[in-house]
């Protein structure tokens, strides 16, 4: 895939993710009897905000989305049978924190072009197989 394809994919996914988050069903909140007929709605556990799409699966592959608390999303494409995806995700996040965010010449919000990140991630993945 070309860089442009990645950007289109990321943009499309971002939109779909936002939609899936907004269509999360809410349940009516019981209002005190004294109040008027306006019913309010909330998530079953208000402390946990709605997440969006987390998995997307086809015959041939699975797309996993990991969203950090800062809102950064990582998309991982794997075989649908792969296990321990969360371990891989955490490692990717750690390497990202190290080799992308701590690289003083990486500009925030710009495409990640950090050779050290690719190298360490590649090395770690090869070490697992």
């Amino acid at each position, binding site marked *: 895939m070309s860089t442009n394809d990645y950007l289109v994919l990321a943009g499309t996914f971002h939109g779909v993710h936002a939609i899936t988050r907004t269509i999360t069903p809410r349940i009516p909140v019981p209002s005190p009897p004294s109040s008027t007929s306006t019913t309010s709605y909330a998530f079953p556990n208000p*402390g*946990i905000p709605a997440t969006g799409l987390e998995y997307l699966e086809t015959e041939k592959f699975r797309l996993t989305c990991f969203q950090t*608390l800062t809102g950064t999303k990582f998309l991982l494409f794997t075989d649908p049978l792969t296990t321990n995806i969360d371990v891989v995700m*955490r490692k990717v996040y750690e390497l990202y*924190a190290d080799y992308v965010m*701590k690289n003083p010449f990486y500009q925030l919000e710009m495409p990640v072009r950090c050779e050290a990140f690719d190298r360490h991630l590649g090395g770690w993945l090869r070490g697992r197989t």
Partner: protein
Amino acid sequence: MSTTKASRIGEELWKTRVDKINAELVTLTYGTIVAQLCQDYDSDYNEVNKQLDKMGYNIGMRLIEDFLAKSNVGRCANFRETADMIAKVGFKIFLNISPTVTNWTSDNNQFSLIFEENPLADFVELPDDGRAQDELWFSNIFCGVLRGALEMVQMQIEAHFVSDVLRGDDTTEMRVSLVRYIEDEMPPEEE
């Protein structure tokens, strides 16, 4: 999440996940930066405070990802939890200190961090020019770091020092106020 649980997480991460370096290297490097800024801005200490805050802000926006990746903690349920997380986990893993969280306002939106120790300020004596003691907040970079880091997790805060032992005060105290929770940004319009 309770205060003790936060302390435990902080201790655990400090022991197992953090690379250590010589503390004096940090102290000397930071001291050099502040001294250089004072020189560059002709001892305009208000400007130096501002620059330190700005540098901290840029660090905080990056450091938060490292904090989250290492600690693997979830979202805080309220600002009190956030305060404990900052003091017991954040400061612990990056500087091996745990400032005390205290002086809450009744609406739980403002608290103070009291620094019993401050590795940035070891060996430091402020310049004896009659103004530094009143104007310079030597460790002002901390305020920026908190502001940058919390902004990335959807909290707009304001932070400033109110006292510093370097100025001859009894304590080193930073005041942190929650301005607002930043609502999710709308997704960009599709072309």
